[in-house]
């Protein structure tokens, strides 16, 4: 027994001594060697794409200027890079050279370490992007790389703002299109123009209905969730050269997942769960319009030039005649040309909901803005009616109250809006004849080719054919 113990001890000793030989590095080489090898491998992958890479970044700012920005870049082994960008036609047609390097940070990182187009969305100078001073569009240019970058496409993440990046190898034709034909901005226009012709593009994924709003940098999706609330998801996106819309992050809801809206030669479709669903047009959005203070929309912009074009009219009689009477009234008095009207729902200084009517017009090269407010009332059926017209204070009030503005609209626009009671306008207190109109607010059909955005209408309850159409905003 003792002997067995000694033998066992001897074997253990041998084993423990031998084991140390292999314990030096768990993965065969030291971390620095491995890091160095992976940086070299990444650099080779980037440099070896014969026609360069498309690099798309989705900014965290998803406002007017935010969304996906796309660049074409050719990497050289000597740390130099040449680039085009889809920021504007200049960046799409002018090659810019700078530098890059791969650096071991917390992760292997691709750094665009000299200013180029890819830095534009991240530039914190407000004169560059128009975004908040110091923020830029919350974009990245240090890119963390992980995994093996095999294949024609890989994804990565920005270091500072976690912006999504998609790297795609360009083909010879694509490189040609970028370098010779401002391809990056040309495809944006092609695709944007197509989507602008679609009215309320919608997809039915079995029972689930989705309305799409596709711009050159952002895609917005509206749907009704399980609680009956309208939800909007906005995802940075960009058009590929085959006209597909590529989302920088997938759309995900329940078991629905897609990151591409595919151009099939005639129209768009999406594929999810191995089924393909086409995009079709709707006359108006399928979900209820929410208009009011704190709602999805609170402003209706009534601009005849935008609504009515030779190709089609979204402002129709009887309201069209009323609008044109106001237009003519303003014009004859002092050649003031009506640009547009805005109906804005807001809170008064006392915290009560009111309607602000804004009249925008010009005389020669001078622009004017006049304002007045109405008391906003709701009846038992939920219909809206306006009373107690009052001139706003300050210059905007004077611009509304002047002889050539308010009084010229008293018998048309102001009367159409005013439900009841005695309200006056102008220095000589011209009485506005009340119309007794009550309104129901709903979507309005968009009959104007090329006019994008959602249209809303204030429909006269007793005469639904009569309505004020306009583009909705907040």
């Amino acid at each position: 027994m003792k002997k067995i113990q000694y033998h066992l001890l001897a074997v253990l000793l041998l084993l423990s001594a031998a084991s140390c030989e292999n314990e030096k590095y768990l993965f065969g080489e030291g971390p620095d060697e491995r890091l160095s090898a992976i940086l070299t491998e990444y650099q080779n992958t980037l440099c070896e794409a014969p026609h360069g890479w498309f690099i798309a970044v989705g900014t965290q700012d998803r406002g007017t200027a935010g969304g996906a920005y796309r660049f074409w870049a050719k990497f050289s082994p000597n740390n130099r890079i040449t680039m085009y960008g889809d920021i504007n036609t200049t960046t799409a047609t002018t090659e810019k050279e700078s530098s890059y390097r791969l650096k071991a940070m917390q992760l292997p990182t691709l750094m665009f370490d000299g200013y180029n187009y890819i830095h534009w969305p991240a530039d914190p100078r407000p004169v560059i992007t128009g975004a908040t001073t110091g923020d830029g569009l919350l974009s990245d240019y240090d890119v963390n790389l992980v995994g093996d970058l095999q294949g024609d496409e890989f994804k990565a993440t920005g270091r500072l703002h976690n912006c999504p990046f998609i790297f795609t190898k360009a083909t010879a034709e694509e490189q040609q299109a970028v370098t010779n034909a401002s391809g990056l901005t040309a495809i944006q226009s092609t695709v944007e123009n197509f989507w602008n012709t679609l009215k309320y593009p919608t997809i039915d994924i079995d029972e689930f209905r989705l309305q799409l709003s596709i711009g050159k940098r952002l895609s917005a999706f509206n749907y009704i969730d399980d609680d009956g609330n309208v939800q909007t998801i906005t995802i940075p996106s960009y058009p590929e050269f085959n006209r597909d819309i590529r989302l920088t992050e997938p759309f995900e809801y329940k078991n629905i997942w897609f990151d591409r809206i595919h151009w099939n030669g005639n129209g768009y479709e999406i594929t999810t769960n191995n089924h393909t669903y086409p995009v079709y047009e709707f006359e108006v959005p399928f979900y209820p319009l929410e208009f009011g203070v704190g709602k999805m929309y609170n402003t209706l912009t009534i601009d005849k030039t935008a609504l009515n074009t030779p190709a089609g009219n979204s402002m129709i009689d009887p309201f069209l005649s009323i609008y044109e009477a106001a237009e003519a009234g303003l014009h004859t008095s002092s050649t003031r040309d009506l640009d547009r009207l805005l109906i804005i729902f807001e809170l008064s200084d006392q915290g009560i909901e009111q309607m602000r009517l804004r009249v925008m017009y010009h005389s020669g090269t001078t622009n004017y803005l006049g304002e007045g407010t109405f008391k906003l009332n709701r009846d038992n059926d939920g219909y809206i009616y306006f009373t107690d017209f009052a001139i706003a204070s300050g210059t905007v009030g004077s611009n509304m109250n002047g002889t050539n503005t308010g009084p010229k609209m008293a018998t048309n626009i102001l009367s159409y809006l005013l439900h009841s009671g005695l309200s006056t306008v102008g220095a000589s207190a011209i009485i506005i004849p009340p119309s007794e109109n009550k309104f129901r607010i709903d979507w309005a059909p968009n009959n104007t080719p090329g006019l994008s955005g959602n249209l809303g209408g204030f429909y006269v309850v007793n005469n639904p054919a009569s309505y004020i159409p306009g583009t909705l905003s907040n």
Partner: protein
Amino acid sequence: MKRILLCMAMTAMLLACTKDELNPDSKLLGMGGDTWERTELDDWLYHEFVVPYNMEIKYKWDPYEFDLEKNYVPVDETRVKELMTSLKKVWIEPYEKQAGTSFIKKIAPKRYVLVGSLQYNGTTATLGFAEGGNKITILDVNSFDLKDPTIVRRILKTAEHEFVHTLHQTVLYPTEWQTICRESYTGSYNSTPDSEFGPAGFVSKYARANPDEDFAETISHIVMNGRQWFENYMTSVGADGAAKLRAKENIIIAYFKTIWNIDFYETYDGAGDGLVEITQEAIARL
């Protein structure tokens, strides 16, 4: 006996692994700084700044040089040569003329970090930093354009300002400097009215931040704008402000002469040999 053997065996097992040693030849990635293939610009900077002054001009982006939470953009390398040439003419050469060629080599910080944009801090923006007499950071390099004298002056003034910090970080100004405007220094200088700083004896709002900034601001304003500008400025701020500014001016003249053997102003009218005059001439020739 059995116990002794067991103990020996255990010790041997423990010791078995202590033989591993670090390989002194293994190369640590990134040790010695980042590398890249040198360009014409790298060669130019090497010959103009590294060889004569042992100054490193770091124009390539490195996030660890900056506040990791803030947004910046890298330098557009097409601006670097123009900026550094101007900086050499307006800042380095006047000091060399006044204090000899070894002055800059000895005193000036060895590391210069450039970045394309400003650093935005809510309501204020930072134009430059000086750290411990070792490093000067110049921001907003992408705005540098010789065709825009306002921008050129602002960026070069920043460099001058930061260098003055290096001077007083090396040998402090006399303590009486701190007493001239003692009651007017405030951390919330940015919210003080613009009409206040002149009559209180300052050349800028930022000078009110603390005596160090006041020292750097006063000197860089005079050097970059000239003696006549300073005289005109003093007449515009009222008697009290002028008296304080004059007292500061006297301290500056004495500080440069006694500590650094530099004539701040020319030795007689028209000689053009003072630091301020030489700098003014260099600006005019840009």
